[in-house]
């Protein structure tokens, strides 16, 4: 029996993430918890950090929830952490959105799409937010990552975002997506894995990604 905690720190719609993780855990011995209590964080074997809405609000709520220090300690201790959407952006050092500092777990910044007046290959305008299904191209250096098990390269996942991660270290990029140029849509480093897209809204392959997370044991992770 192991426990995965979906961090609920009062931002947006975390229910959909919790439900998808619950679905992914069906038939396994993983218990899914939802909450932000530091004791819950300490007791959990794995942590999912969702995020939706404005980065500054997410960071503020995360700090106010009291879970922030416990999460940082858990990550330092090697527990697997999965960031989703703004939950991924929060892992970096800084976001252009409202000039907001992030957690700094991964070096890099979060930038806004600058696509005004530009056109896609089919002649349609680039819209911001990028909203919809786009292809996720797995990075060559991460093809064997346990989180990508059963996920074919070039598969479609669901995105909704106006800002994107620009990590400093190329080796942290686990996958890219093209929207007016390639950007990092998934990051991986040690016991951290994060996606800009929403696995909980990406049908079967999204559930597969959560299932992979529930069995992922990166080196240094607690059993």
């Amino acid at each position, binding site marked *: 029996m192991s426990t995965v905690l979906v961090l609920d720190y009062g931002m947006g719609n975390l229910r959909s993430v919790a439900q998808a993780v619950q679905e992914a855990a069906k038939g396994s011995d993983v218990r899914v918890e939802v909450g932000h209590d530091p004791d819950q964080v300490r007791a959990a074997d794995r942590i999912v950090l969702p995020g939706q809405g404005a980065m500054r609000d997410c960071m503020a709520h995360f700090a106010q929830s009291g879970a922030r220090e416990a999460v940082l300690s858990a990550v330092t201790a090697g527990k697997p952490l999965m960031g989703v959407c703004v939950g991924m952006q929060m892992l970096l050092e800084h976001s252009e959105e409202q000039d907001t500092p992030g957690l700094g777990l991964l070096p890099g910044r979060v930038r806004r799409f600058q696509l005004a007046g530009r056109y896609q290959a089919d002649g349609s305008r680039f819209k911001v937010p990028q909203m*919809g299904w786009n292809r996720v191209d797995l990075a060559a250096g991460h093809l064997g990552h346990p989180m990508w098990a059963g996920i074919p390269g070039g598969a479609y996942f669901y995105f909704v975002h106006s800002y994107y991660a620009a990590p400093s270290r190329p080796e942290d990029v686990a996958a890219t997506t093209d929207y007016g140029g390639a950007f990092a849509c998934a990051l991986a480093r040690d016991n951290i894995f994060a996606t800009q897209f929403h696995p909980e809204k990406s049908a079967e392959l999204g559930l597969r990604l959560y299932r992979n997370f529930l069995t992922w044991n990166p080196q240094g992770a607690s059993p």
Partner: protein
Amino acid sequence: MLAKRLIPCLDVKDGRVVKGINFVGLRDAGDPVEIARRYNEQGADELTFLDITATHEGRDLILPIIEAVAAQVFIPLTVGGGVREVADVRRLLNAGADKVSFNSAAVARPELIREASDKYGSQCIVVAIDAKDNGLGGWNVFTHGGRKDTGLDAVAWAQTMQAQGAGEILLTSMDRDGTRAGFNVPLTRAVSDAVDVPVIASGGVGNLQHLVDGIRLGGADAVLAASIFHDGQHSIGEAKAFMRDAGIAVRL
């Protein structure tokens, strides 16, 4: 590249999915969860639920439906119809909706969109615009199910709603809705070219070429249709294969 989206729309009345022509002669179309699952399996990119319940009291009946669908179908869900205040957004998001669509309430008080998007993020705030040809080369915004002419220019209104924080525009041609004559292409093109947020074309789909036209000619980012799918005229899979064969990037 980003795929163009195909979105089936489910009309909900008093807690059941119904189908009919211009809201007349409504028939039960089946169990909402079962329909949602079927469309998901066929490859629908999102699902939109439109609550056409006439009474305020009846509206809460959509919440259990959204809860049941969200527990089993893992693609984005949008809910519209009768959404009046910011608190409605919270209730619908808590039930499992990903996006909430405002219509008449946004016309009555445009700052509502600013308040809702500030609180929950633009990504979950859709503004539905019902537009009708004004005979002067433009389109007026109508509310209250197409009965009330607001006098607002639809293109300018879409820009106003974007400025207030709308993350997406659901654009319905009242002239075409229910006719099966195809989308109003000039209207779709005018709005899509005028805003930076995605535009969903709605109203008038009668065959699969219409879906292609909405994207190719209208410049829509997504196309919404109801009856051609509910009637079993076409499956979602057929529609997407047709779009792909026409050279449109779709998720298959």
